[in-house]
């Protein structure tokens, strides 16, 4: 019995962490977030490490690793608030296509980083603002909101009945406009379709479920990392900042805030590991665990990033320290692919607790 990361997973963790620490520190993230540069260099570096093809099977040209490996990477991307299309192109897209057994021919170029596949799943989870999509004779009309990745070459689009279609971003009739969100480390866009050619990837809600679960666990891991980094920064800052002739870390009020952050966050690490492991190995629990994990991590992530900001006092509120990047990352993750209330209801439904 071994509950934890393998030595290979720790090596993966070390190499990705080293790359992000050295090559994508906060000032590089800031440049990308403020539109001074794109995330292409960063994604290129991650491609050198094999990251885009992590979950893509070897037959499809990837590394064929596990969801726990992907969670290790997601946690680090959250820790370093890294801009990247990992969750859309490297987690949800391969999960969808490999579960459906369609569109897999694209995955080889996803693994090499040449192709990015964006995700527009909002309609299949929680339709908002009358975005209504319709498909008629293989032609897609209507729009998708908050599609992940404004720079994608393709998009996987879910209808409200959880059919999934693939469209080419340069297809005739498709227009794309960026949507600004609080989290500038991720790009989202609005896609409008006027009779756009769309390839049906799946009309099986099971495929949607599998793809959504993979995305939920990945977002949970991202929030875990973002929260851990906010906590680490708070402890470091509290050890340096002096008031009343003492470092503020010696005040019980501040220590207790930090202890509460640890207490809520530490079990989340085990929960994310277990939920990731369950995706492949414990299918009877995977949807309940993925839903609960994302909902729980969203609550903890909100608490930790907000408390870490408070520990920083006024400086936490400024752009100078940049702690808000972590706060916003957790805030973005909380809403994406289902807010906590919706996911807890999903967990209840899968256990047969809803009428």
């Amino acid at each position, binding site marked *: 019995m071994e509950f934890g*990361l393998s030595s290979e997973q720790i090596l993966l963790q070390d190499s990705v962490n080293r790359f992000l620490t050295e090559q994508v520190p906060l000032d590089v993230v800031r440049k990308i977030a403020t539109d001074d540069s794109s995330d292409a260099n960063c994604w290129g570096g991650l491609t050198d490490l094999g990251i885009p093809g992590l979950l893509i099977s070897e037959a499809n040209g990837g590394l064929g690793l596990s969801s726990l490996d992907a969670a290790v990477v997601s946690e680090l991307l959250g820790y370093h608030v890294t801009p990247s299309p990992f969750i859309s192109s490297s987690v949800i897209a391969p999960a969808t296509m490999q579960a459906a057994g369609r569109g897999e021919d694209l995955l080889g170029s996803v693994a090499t980083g040449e192709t990015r596949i964006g995700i527009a799943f909002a309609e299949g989870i929680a339709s908002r603002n009358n975005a209504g999509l319709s498909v008629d004779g293989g032609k897609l009309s209507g729009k998708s909101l908050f599609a992940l990745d404004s720079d994608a070459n393709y998009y996987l689009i879910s209808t409200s009945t959880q059919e999934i279609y693939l469209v080419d971003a340069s297809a005739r009739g498709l227009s794309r406009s960026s949507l600004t969100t609080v989290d500038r480390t991720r790009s989202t866009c609005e896609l409008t379709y006027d009779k756009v050619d769309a390839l049906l990837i799946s009309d099986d809600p099971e495929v949607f479920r599998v793809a959504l679960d993979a995305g939920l666990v990945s977002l949970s891991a991202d929030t875990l990392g973002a929260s851990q980094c906010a906590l680490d920064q708070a402890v470091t800052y509290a050890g340096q900042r002096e008031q009343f002739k003492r470092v503020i870390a010696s005040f019980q009020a501040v220590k207790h805030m930090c202890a509460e952050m640890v207490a809520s966050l530490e079990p989340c690490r085990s929960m994310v590991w277990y939920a990731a492991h369950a995706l492949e190995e414990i299918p009877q629990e995977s949807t309940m665990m993925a839903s609960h994990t994302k909902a729980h991590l969203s609550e903890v992530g909100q608490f930790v990033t907000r408390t870490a900001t408070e520990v920083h006092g006024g400086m936490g509120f400024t752009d100078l320290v940049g702690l808000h990047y972590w706060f916003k990352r957790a805030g973005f993750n909380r809403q994406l692919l289902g807010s906590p209330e919706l996911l807890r209801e999903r967990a209840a439904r899968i256990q047969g607790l*809803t009428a």
Partner: protein
Amino acid sequence: MDLSFGAEYDEFRTEVKQFIAASSDKSPKQAGIGNAEAIAWQKILINNGYAARTIPTEYGGFGAEPDIIESRIISEEFSNAQISTGLGGQGISMLTPVLLEMGTEEQKQQFIKPTIHGEMIWCQGYSEPGAGSDLASLTTKAELDGDEWVINGQKIWTSTAHLADWIFCLVRTEPEAPKHQGISFLLFSMDTPGIDIRPLVDMTGDANFNEVFFTDVRVPKDQIVGQRGQGWQVANAILGHERGSLAPPDAALSRLNGVIKLMNSESVNGERVIDNPVFRDRLMKIQGRVLAMKCNDMRLLSARINKGQDAKLAGMIVKLLGTELRHELESLAIDVMGEIGIAYGDNPYLRGNGSWQYQYMYFLGLIIGGGTSQIQKNIISERGLGMPREPKPAAKANAS
């Protein structure tokens, strides 16, 4: 990641299941100290290696090599069968491990066997009216007079003192030494003259706690564990044992299933409570937290089996989080019942034998006892995160 215990343990699990199938009818229906059925069951468990499993045979145990997975399998199977895992109490869970580690050969011979067989009941004399969170400031003193310690002072929160045969007790033996170095760990009979026990009724209505007063209580000099002045180290070894065991996630999980049943059977205005989305969301919130603790527990088990896995913080937060979580879980059950939830005692509308209100209060006691939540936060931040201790207040100028 490998969650299986491995095929080599399958046979062991089968043995445990077979034992349970053959013997579970002898498991006592009622817990409680001095219960003859419970004592007989304890003997059966020890003889078969399901209690006192790793305690050497010369001290009355089963004498197995420690194996964390075997212990876990036993507890899982007993829990599934909902039968008693044997006697508990502070003598078994706290004193016995300490004697094994720090007791003299004579002490081990004299005390361990009757203790684990339920023939010698112990209470713990630690807290005092003036020494709660700051336990090391305790003032009950023991002075050497010839071959005897003479003890004077008062203890409080002494669980089961009124039923105990013996007490393990922290006393100040070196009043001049720094506070952590002046304490000794004594063992003595509760029949010794000069001991006065007064029950302390708690908010649940039970009187498990007591105040214990010592007036010139004379105890043989050699009834000390460890050296003079080492009592604090001895006590800390036991407190570590206590904290981890206060709020096991499997118990929370089983209690949570009880809440789900309750929400299916209780109704409000003709609607089952489980069908009310507000209540359902509260249930799911708590379920998510219980699952997180369950995963945390798997990590802790793994870290005990696989040396080199670091789970220090994961262990430190269990008492704080586990007790708070149980308190909230019991509170949800009460809210599910509304007015029926306040029923207590002999009220005919009582659900679950009144256990929801009882546990709701009991866990508030556990939030406070065994190191309050606030003390836990000090420990997590200081020992877990390396944050500095609260500075000592400066000595008052012109103190008279």
